[in-house]
């Protein structure tokens, strides 16, 4: 059976402003419950919202990076619903005049890139947090620290064609938001939340059938997202085979991903809950956005991952894959560029960062921002290798030591006496001794067995604790044996 998977994503990102969306309370993660609240975000009568300038400019910034059209006139609306974490019983959001609309995001997978349409980007305030009492207590606790903090909602077109592509889409979105410094997009901490609409287009009897759309919620990690959407596509396929239900007949339902059970579970929305009775927020005037302001914000947008990748491949001659791995974070890009500055083979710097630096970051569970070895030290270390002072193998140990001790490469090579023995006089004695002690290996070598050379090299490396300069050693072995 031929079919397509059709996915659209709704992503919420928390903005990194200092204060909340419509009041001056601090916008931070964590903290003592209800320690960052005021009459406005608690919805006390008579308090009025005043929009945060940076929330609006962040939204425009994000919209521009997503190739959206920025609205000349935008307004806020009230979305009405009753829930304890929403103190005003409405959420200030945007309904029919969102700040940005009609853009796209380029998603790269396996070296191929595809444009995923962005329907809209709008601003809204977050709700507080409910904590349900344990041990049979008949109450819930509410913390309003998060209430009124600014969010962007980014809605994609149903252009995504697989679970994997959905993950790539959200990861690219995260990358861009981080580069823009608009949001830290941490899925585990909830500063990036994603819901997805998914259904199948099934081609049968020369006709196309759409299965009922399912909104999948509660995907709290990229791994969960991939599993949930893969599961859901399979489930819909089975359901189609069994019942032939179409979108026209069933409409849309909501299912929550249950990570422990590895399945999506049907959820029922109270019918009236969907009636949000949007109306224009009377306490905030519509906002017109000038071309001048858009121009200013445009100029503040840094080079984005997509452009960086192109430039890295072009200017540094590194592979596309390496460029993709480096552009995972802005800090990693900066680290690479600083290390590569003035160095002849940027490719080697890239490889070093992607293997040795990444390895240590994983081991120490730290981010590149916390990494103790300055980028220029990577350059220095590779220069020491280039000069033949130490081998590439020893350089790896030195690097780990640099990260642990915060000493420079030169200092460690010096104090630990790691410099290779390139002095022929010193090496000659060792080579002669090894040749003397291994007559049969020497005979093998003379008979043309390459392995014999490696064996002799190994013995010499052992005797010098790995410090013998390989090139010089090989030259000496060959000269000694043929001279015999």
């Amino acid at each position: 059976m031929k079919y397509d998977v059709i996915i659209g994503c709704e992503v919420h990102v928390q903005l990194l402003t200092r204060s909340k969306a419509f009041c001056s309370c601090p916008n931070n993660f964590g903290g003592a419950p209800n320690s960052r609240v005021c009459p406005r975000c608690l919805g006390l009568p008579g308090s009025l919202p005043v929009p945060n300038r940076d929330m609006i400019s962040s939204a425009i910034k994000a919209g521009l990076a997503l190739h959206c059209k920025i609205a000349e006139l935008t307004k806020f609306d009230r979305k009405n619903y009753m829930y304890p974490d929403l103190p005003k019983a409405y959420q200030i959001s945007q309904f029919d005049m969102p700040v940005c609309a009609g853009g796209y995001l380029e998603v790269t997978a396996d070296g191929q890139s595809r444009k995923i349409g962005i329907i809209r980007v709008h601003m809204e305030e977050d709700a507080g947090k409910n904590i349900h009492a344990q041990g049979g207590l008949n109450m819930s606790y509410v913390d309003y620290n998060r209430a009124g903090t600014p969010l962007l909602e980014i809605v994609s077109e149903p252009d995504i064609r697989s679970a994997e592509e959905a993950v790539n889409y959200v990861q690219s979105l995260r990358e861009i938001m981080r580069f823009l410094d608009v949001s830290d997009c941490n899925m585990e901490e909830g500063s990036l939340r994603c819901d997805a609409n998914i259904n199948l287009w099934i081609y049968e009897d020369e006709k196309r059938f759409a299965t009922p759309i399912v909104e999948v919620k509660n995907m709290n990690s990229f791994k969960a997202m991939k599993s949930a959407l893969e599961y859901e596509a399979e489930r819909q396929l089975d359901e189609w085979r069994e019942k032939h239900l179409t979108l026209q007949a069933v409409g849309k339902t909501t299912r929550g991903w249950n990570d422990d059970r590895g399945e999506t579970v049907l959820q029922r929305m109270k019918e009236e809950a969907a009636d949000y009775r949007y109306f224009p927020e009377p306490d905030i005037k519509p906002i017109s956005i000038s071309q001048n302001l858009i121009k200013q914000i445009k100029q503040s947008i840094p080079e984005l991952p997509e452009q960086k990748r192109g430039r890295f491949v072009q200017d540094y001659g590194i592979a596309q894959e390496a460029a993709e791995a480096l552009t995972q974070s802005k800090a990693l890009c900066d680290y690479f560029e600083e290390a590569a500055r003035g160095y002849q083979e940027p490719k080697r710097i890239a490889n070093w960062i992607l293997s040795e630096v990444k390895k240590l970051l994983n081991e120490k569970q730290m981010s590149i921002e916390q990494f103790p070895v300055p980028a220029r030290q990577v350059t220095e270390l590779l220069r020491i290798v280039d000069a033949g002072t130490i081998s590439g193998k020893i350089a790896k140990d030195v690097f780990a030591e640099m990260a642990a001790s915060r000493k420079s490469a030169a200092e460690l090579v010096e104090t630990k006496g790691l410099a290779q023995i390139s002095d022929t006089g010193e090496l000659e004695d060792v080579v002669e001794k090894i040749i003397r002690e291994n007559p049969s290996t020497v005979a093998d070598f003379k008979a043309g067995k390459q392995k014999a050379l490696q064996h002799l090299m190994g013995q010499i490396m052992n005797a010098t604790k790995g410090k013998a300069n390989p090139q010089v050693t090989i030259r000496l072995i060959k000269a000694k044996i043929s001279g015999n």
Partner: protein
Amino acid sequence: MIDDKTLQSVLALCKFSLSDREKEHFKQQIGDILSYVETLNQVDTRSIDPDLGKSLESMSLRQDKAAVGLPTEQVAGLSAHFQDSFFTVPRIIEEMDEITEES
């Protein structure tokens, strides 16, 4: 006068319940208010420039500066239901109930 169905859906949205006598009373009142507001529709606004927006630069937006909010004692004083720095509410029955699928 609004009809029963409309009143019923408004009550559900507000999480209100009314006695039958009150229902009749409010059907009349809400109807009167709506028709009063409807009179606004008689004004011809076609020639009026909406001039809704003010430019972002000139509008009174807030600089993104954080300030300390209410002290906890004051927050606590706002509600009779406050415990261990939390507001307390009757146990929340999830809006989204997990239901078992009919097989």
